[in-house]
């Protein structure tokens, strides 16, 4: 209604006016105050405030006169807030950055400092991980990656034991276990079909060996193959073997419900990411968790299980920061094992720096699976550099599949059609 839109405009107006009124004071606290320097670090992890305080306390203790202020914003609004912050005064000195495609609007606009020319030592971080913080246009490094994610199947050890099940070694065992659980009235997999961003993750988690993981990635990048390749189509078809074990009316199940089904022990397995571990442990501390990598499905190109993963976040420096040298010093420290170990212990995130070992046993196991047999979360890592993104296309396609409106051929054809609009193989 008009009254609604009018009210919206007025509220927006007031909001902007308020923000404008607040801006100068925010700016003042960001600058140097005589003797000390305050470095403002922006992030989308509102849940990690206490942990970051602890981590930065350690840094402050070693760097006299430097105060690091951690300032998180809501994750879903963060990209907008950051791009505005970086293009105006009062922005952050150091900012948490999205990886791969999500980084491009910022680095292409020249908002960040190129780090390799600034003496940031990234030798302890693997090259493919650094790839997540590089700018496509100039190949420069604009962030220090500090959090990676890996995809595994979490399972409830107690439920497995009650039903006489063990970690599956083969695809057939996985299917048999799923059937046993379903017959016993337990939902085998807690999955959301409503919040469809989860679905492309499940595709790689369950079927990456079917299409061949990294080998296929290279073939697609060089133009030798595309997404209509029979093995890739078959990998989508393989999903249809698992979907009967998803919750009933899965397209009506949202993300929070799927997580609750697992933490309330109504579902036996949760195919998900390392980023969910802390939440599960927090929601139900009594939950006895195990993890495994999905065994290769029949006809798999690579006959071993694989653990998909990707770089999630890095820290970079604002190119207009008044305290650029101090900010760079902080980012240099973020590439060290010291910082990496704290990220792993305090934030329960997988840190890519060599020599960092998680102290949480489950996280350690995930880290081991990832190191043993890594494969990229292909559509996120390589196909988010243009619009429409590979992950969005796959998400929509798999959701239609769950509803019975699309088959593997149609999904892969749409994926190829969408991506071909901006992706040039061999470039």
């Amino acid at each position, binding site marked *: *209604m*008009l*009254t*609604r*839109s009018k009210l919206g*405009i007025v509220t*927006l*107006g007031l909001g*902007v006016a308020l923000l404008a009124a607040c801006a100068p004071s925010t700016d003042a606290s960001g600058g140097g105050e005589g003797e000390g320097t305050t470095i403002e670090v922006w992030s989308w992890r509102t849940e990690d405030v206490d942990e970051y305080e602890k981590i930065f306390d350690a840094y402050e203790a070693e760097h006299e006169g430097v105060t690091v202020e951690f300032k998180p914003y809501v994750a879903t609004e963060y*990209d*907008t807030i950051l*791009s*505005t912050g*970086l*293009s105006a005064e009062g922005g952050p000195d150091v900012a948490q950055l999205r990886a791969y*495609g999500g980084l*491009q*609007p*910022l680095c*292409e*606009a*020249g*908002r960040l400092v190129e780090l390799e020319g600034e003496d940031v030592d990234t030798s302890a971080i693997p090259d493919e991980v650094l790839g997540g913080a590089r700018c496509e246009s100039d190949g420069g490094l604009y962030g220090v990656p500090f959090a990676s994610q890996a995809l595994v199947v979490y399972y409830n050890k107690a439920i497995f034991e009650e039903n006489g099940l063990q970690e599956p070694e083969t695809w057939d065992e996985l299917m048999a276990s799923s059937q046993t659980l379903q017959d016993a009235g337990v939902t085998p997999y807690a999955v959301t*079909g*409503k*919040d*469809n961003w989860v679905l492309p993750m499940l595709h790689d988690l369950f079927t990456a060996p079917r299409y061949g993981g990294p080998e296929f990635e290279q073939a697609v990048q060089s133009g030798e193959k595309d997404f209509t390749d029979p093995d890739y189509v078959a990998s989508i078809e393989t999903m249809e073997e698992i979907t009967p074990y998803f*919750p*009933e*009316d*899965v*397209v*009506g*199940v*949202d993300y929070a*419900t799927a997580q*609750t*089904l697992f933490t309330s022990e109504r579902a036996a397995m949760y195919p998900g990411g390392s980023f969910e571990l802390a939440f599960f442990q927090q929601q139900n501390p009594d939950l006895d968790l195990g993890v495994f990598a999905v065994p290769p499905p029949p006809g798999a190109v690579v006959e071993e299980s694989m653990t998909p993963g990707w770089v999630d976040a890095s820290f970079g420096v604002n190119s207009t920061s008044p305290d650029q040298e101090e900010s760079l010093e902080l980012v240099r420290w973020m590439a060290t094992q010291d910082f990496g170990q704290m990220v792993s212990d305090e934030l329960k995130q997988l840190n890519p720096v060599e020599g960092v070992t998680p102290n949480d046993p489950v996280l350690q196991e995930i880290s081991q699976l990832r190191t043993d047999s890594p494969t990229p979360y292909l559509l996120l890592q390589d196909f988010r550099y*243009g*619009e*429409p*993104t590979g992950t*969005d*296309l796959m*998400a*929509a396609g798999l*959701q*239609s599949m769950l*509803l019975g*409106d699309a088959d593997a051929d149609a999904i892969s054809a*749409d994926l190829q*059609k*969408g991506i071909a*609009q901006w992706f040039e193989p061999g470039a």
Partner: protein
Amino acid sequence: MTARRGRGATTRRPAPPFPVLAAFLVPALVLYSVFVVYPLFSALQYSLFEWTGTVRRSFVGADNFVALFTTFPLDEQLLSAFGHNVVFFLGTMLIQNTLGLTFAVLLYKRHITRRVFQTLFTLPYLVSPLVVGYLWVLMLRPQFGVLNAMFDAVGLESMSQPWLGDPGTALPVVILINAWQWLGFPMLLFGAALASIPEEYEAAARVDGASTWQAFSRITLPLLTPAIGTVTVLTFIGSFNLFALAYAVGGSKGDPAGAIDVLGLVFYRTAFEGGVNAIGVSSALAVLMFVFIFGVALVANRFLRRREAELS
């Protein structure tokens, strides 16, 4: 000025001097210009350029507009979203406004209960559509939701469905949720319009032997035309600007499977999840949406004014 002052001296107060007028009008004009007029024109300007992040690059003419209609799957999404806006508008007219009129007619002569019911029915629109959306999502959850639990409890298991998970039921359910929230609005407008119709008209018709229905359909309803027109135009604008409720229920993609995707969500996606040239493409969409909504509202308003003139 002087002539008017002389003529109106007996019936109205003289117009205040210009500085006083300005003092009262300028603040509103400034706010309006800064927050409405300026963004409108800057969106038009933005839509003609290519962007990398927040940095403006070269002038590209209509390229961003062309991209809206040629990029797969944006072209298909745009079309289906537009269709959903149309369905939403028609559904809202049919359910929300018809019920609003019915309740207004039922209540307008009941002086004591009217206030109570008006307040009750208008209460939901004091709540943010986002909150309303999330609450209904909670109630309609297939696993833990109240509604399906109620159906199960009374033996109507066949009625318990994933209401918001089935593309067939999602949009109708959203229309109902929206109607639940906004029912009070047409009710108040129609109530005010009914109150302004002199009671003698209906009384005279009844004396002449008209039945209740005849009196309503021949006397009251035609006299409500201006109010119906206003409600229609406002519903149209509201339906095509729909965002918060659709976002709360279906997220930025209008899930399930884009069944409740509307233009507002397509705009949100192109603007905030749209990659490097997001500002260019989303501004183009914003301009088109504005031109369409403004244009239709303008034409509809003209048409309705003419109808009113014919009636009076």
